[in-house]
C-alpha cells in the first residue's frame, strides 16, 4: 500500500476510534438521562424546565469527560456520586424540610444545600486523595458534582445553587487542608 493510502486509512481509523469513544461515553451517561426523566415524570421538582436544562448540562459534561478519557473520565463516577448527595438532600428537604416551633417556621432548603455541598466536597476530596489524582481530575469531578448538585438545588432557586457552591468551596478547602496536613505528617514520619 502506498503511504497516501495508509494516511487515508489512518484518518478513517481515527474517525472510527473517536466515534466509538463517543458512543461509549453516551451509553455511560445514559443513567443520568434516565434519572432526569424519572424526576421529571415524578414531578418532584418545582421547576421542571430548569431541572431538565441543568440535567442536560450534566449529561453533556459527563459525556464529554468520558469521551476525552484519562483523569477527567475517571472523575465522572465520583463526581456524579458526590453530586447526588446535595441533589437528594435538596429534593427531600423540599418535601419535609421545615423546622417549625410555636414562634417561627424555618425553611431548611438553604442550610441543607450548604451541607450537601460540604458532603460532596468531602466525597470528591476523599476519593481524589486516596487515588492521588491530577488537577484535571479535581476540576472535572468538582464541576460535575456541582452541576449534579445544582439539579436539586434549583428547588430553592439561584440562592440554592449559590449555597451548594459555597458549601462545596468550604468543604473542599477544609478537606484539601486536612489532606495536605496528613501528607506532610507522613513525609516527616519517614525514616531518613
Amino acid at each position, binding site marked *: 500500500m502506498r503511504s497516501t493510502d495508509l494516511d487515508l486509512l489512518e484518518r*478513517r481509523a*481515527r474517525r472510527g*476510534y473517536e466515534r*466509538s469513544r463517543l458512543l461509549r461515553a453516551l451509553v455511560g451517561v445514559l443513567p443520568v438521562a434516565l434519572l432526569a426523566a424519572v424526576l421529571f415524570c415524578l414531578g418532584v421538582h418545582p421547576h421542571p424546565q430548569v431541572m431538565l436544562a441543568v440535567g442536560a448540562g450534566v449529561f453533556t459534561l459527563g459525556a464529554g469527560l468520558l*469521551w476525552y*478519557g*484519562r483523569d477527567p473520565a475517571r472523575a465522572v463516577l465520583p463526581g456524579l456520586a458526590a453530586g447526588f448527595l446535595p441533589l437528594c438532600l435538596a429534593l427531600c428537604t423540599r418535601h419535609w424540610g421545615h423546622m417549625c416551633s410555636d414562634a417561627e417556621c424555618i425553611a431548611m432548603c438553604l442550610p441543607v444545600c450548604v451541607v450537601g455541598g460540604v458532603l460532596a466536597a468531602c466525597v470528591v476530596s476523599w476519593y481524589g486523595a486516596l487515588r492521588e489524582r491530577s488537577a484535571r481530575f479535581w476540576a472535572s469531578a468538582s464541576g460535575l458534582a456541582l452541576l449534579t448538585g445544582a439539579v436539586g438545588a434549583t428547588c430553592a432557586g439561584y440562592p440554592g445553587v449559590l449555597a451548594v457552591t459555597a458549601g462545596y468551596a468550604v468543604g473542599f478547602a477544609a478537606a484539601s487542608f486536612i489532606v495536605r496536613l496528613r501528607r506532610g505528617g507522613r513525609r516527616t514520619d519517614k525514616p531518613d
Partner: protein
Amino acid sequence: MNETEHNEMNALMARLADGDRAAFTPVFRTLWPKVHRLCLQLLHSDADADDAAQQAMEKILARASEYDRNRAALPWALGIAGWECRTLRRRQFRRREQSDDALPEPPANQVDADEALAERDLVHAAMDALGTLSSSDQETLLATYFGNGAPASVDGATLRKRRERALTRLRAAFRRLYAID
C-alpha cells in the same frame, strides 16, 4: 517481536484505551505491518490481504477503548485480524456459491478447495505454535501425530503424560500467538 517491543505495544494500547490520542499514530504504525502480514499469510492474495487488513485496522482501533490492559495487545489485535480474514473468505465463498447457482455442479475436488485451504492455514498456524515449544515437547507431539517414533526409553504411561503436558503448552502457545482457541 521481542519482549520489550511486546511491552511497549501493550503500554501504547493501554494509553490509547485510556484516551491518550498521542498514542494513536504509534499504535497504527506498529500494528499495520503485522496485521497485513497475518492477512497475507491467511489469504494468499495481495488484494484480499489489503482489504482484510484495512477492515481489521479500522475494527481494532474502533475497539481500542475496549482493550483490557491485563491482556497482551498484539494477540488481541491479531485475533481481530484473523477473524476479519475468516469473514472475508466466507463472504467470497458465499458470493461464489451464489454466482455458481446457474452453472452446472463443479467437480467435487473444487468444492472442497476452500476447506482444504482453511485446513492448510490451520496446520501452518499450529506448526508455528509448535515451533515455540521446547524440543522435547516438539518430539513428543511429532511422535504422536506424525508417527516419528517415540523415544525408546519412554514407556506408555510416561509418554501419555508428556503428550498431555505438551498439548497444554501447545494450546497456550496457540492462544498467545493468535488469541483464539
